[in-house]
């Protein structure tokens, strides 16, 4: 029993850094991609809108494992990236598609009146987007984004298929050595549970901090 705390958990937690790194890279790159494409989609003209819609549709219609593998092999044929980076970048592209939809919805729910009012003051479209629309849209997007963040935390386990030494992979090594797979995988589940819990809590707190009455 104490083996769990002296042996298993430290061993698994040593892989926590990898899991968190994959998650953070995927979420932050996904954020840049998602926000950028959402702005282009809403304000960029019909051609851009259609292309971006196609991208988000395709990525959201395919299993994540499949996309990880496709992108891994495509990337591997072009440039020599480690499984860690291939996996993280692939997850970033996947998350980018979901985040595009989240931000698009948020931007559209800010309402066209805000843009009109900004323009009547003489602001350019760009000024209006950055100073008026985005500050409101980002706040509106927080609940949907927390949902996505929790999903990516869990999806980071998928890089297991690429052999990345994150906590699930470590648990598998441990169980191969000690013939205690149940213990190992339950421990992994517990770690993930704590991670998603903290993520949800953290983002709720952020939402409260940024709350503006009436927004």
């Amino acid at each position, binding site marked *: 029993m104490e083996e769990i705390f002296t042996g298993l958990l430290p061993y698994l937690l040593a892989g926590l850094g990898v899991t968190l790194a994959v998650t953070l890279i995927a979420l932050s790159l996904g954020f840049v991609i998602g926000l950028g494409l959402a702005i282009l989609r809403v304000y960029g003209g019909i051609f851009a809108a259609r292309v971006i819609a196609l991208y988000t549709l395709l990525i959201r219609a*395919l299993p994540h494992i499949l996309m990880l*593998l496709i992108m891994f*092999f495509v990337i591997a044929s072009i440039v020599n990236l480690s499984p860690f980076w291939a996996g993280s970048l692939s997850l970033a592209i996947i998350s980018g598609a979901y985040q595009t939809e989240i931000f698009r919805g948020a931007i559209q729910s800010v309402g066209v009146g805000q843009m009109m009012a900004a323009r009547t003051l003489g602001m350019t479209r760009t000024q209006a987007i950055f100073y008026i629309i985005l500050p409101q849209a980002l706040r509106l997007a927080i609940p949907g984004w927390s949902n996505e963040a929790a999903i990516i935390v869990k999806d980071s386990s998928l890089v297991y298929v690429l052999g990345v030494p994150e906590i699930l992979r470590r648990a598998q090594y441990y169980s191969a050595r000690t013939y205690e*797979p149940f213990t*190992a995988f339950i421990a992994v589940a517990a770690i993930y549970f704590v991670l998603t819990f903290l993520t949800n809590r953290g983002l709720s707190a952020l939402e409260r901090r940024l709350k503006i009455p009436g927004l």
Partner: protein
Amino acid sequence: MEGYLNFLRAAIPALNQGTVITLELTLVALAAGFILGFPAAVARVYGGRLLAALSTVYTEIFRGTPVLVQLFIIYYGLPQFGLTLPAYLAAFIALGLNSGAYQAEYFRGAIQAISSGQMMAARSLGISQLKAILYIIIPQAFRLALPAWSNEVVSMVKVTSIVYLIAVPDLMTRAKMLSSRYFNPIETYLTAAVYYLVIIGLITLVMNYIERRSRIPGLELEVDTR
């Protein structure tokens, strides 16, 4: 191009067989998920302290951990206690439990959205709580949850792909086997992608049709889906 067509001739029958398994897994998981999830939702809203707590623990755990880990616990973990399940069964159980947790949340949202006003109206007509739940709340909750549930159907098709890690011969696994055999991972996986797109496209059309037919004007719900 020639090579790809030859590959397809060998690949298509295998991928088709895999598709059948994928659809089978999806259906069983959805059904199991419904049998688990719907009662869990009712228990959470109407069940009193203990049942509600149990329901919450179930949904929080299965939504708060990766489905891949859940699968590994059931397939690789249970043998630690001497309980070795065949891959298919492990897959059904894991996917079913996972889907049940998400479905519980969708149904809970729907039930709560409908609940208070409708319940008050029903009770003031003299209808008992049980009858109100069965005849007033539940019929509306189903309709309200339908869009979220359509999302779940599409999601489940995608989620079944994880059984590739325990060698259940679904579409994803077949693709892997083909790619190892013919050394062409990109073509194989892209072909599998086309299969998934077609499957999901068709399912989406069907679900949209069902949604449109059963929609009650003014009755809509906003829930966090996968």
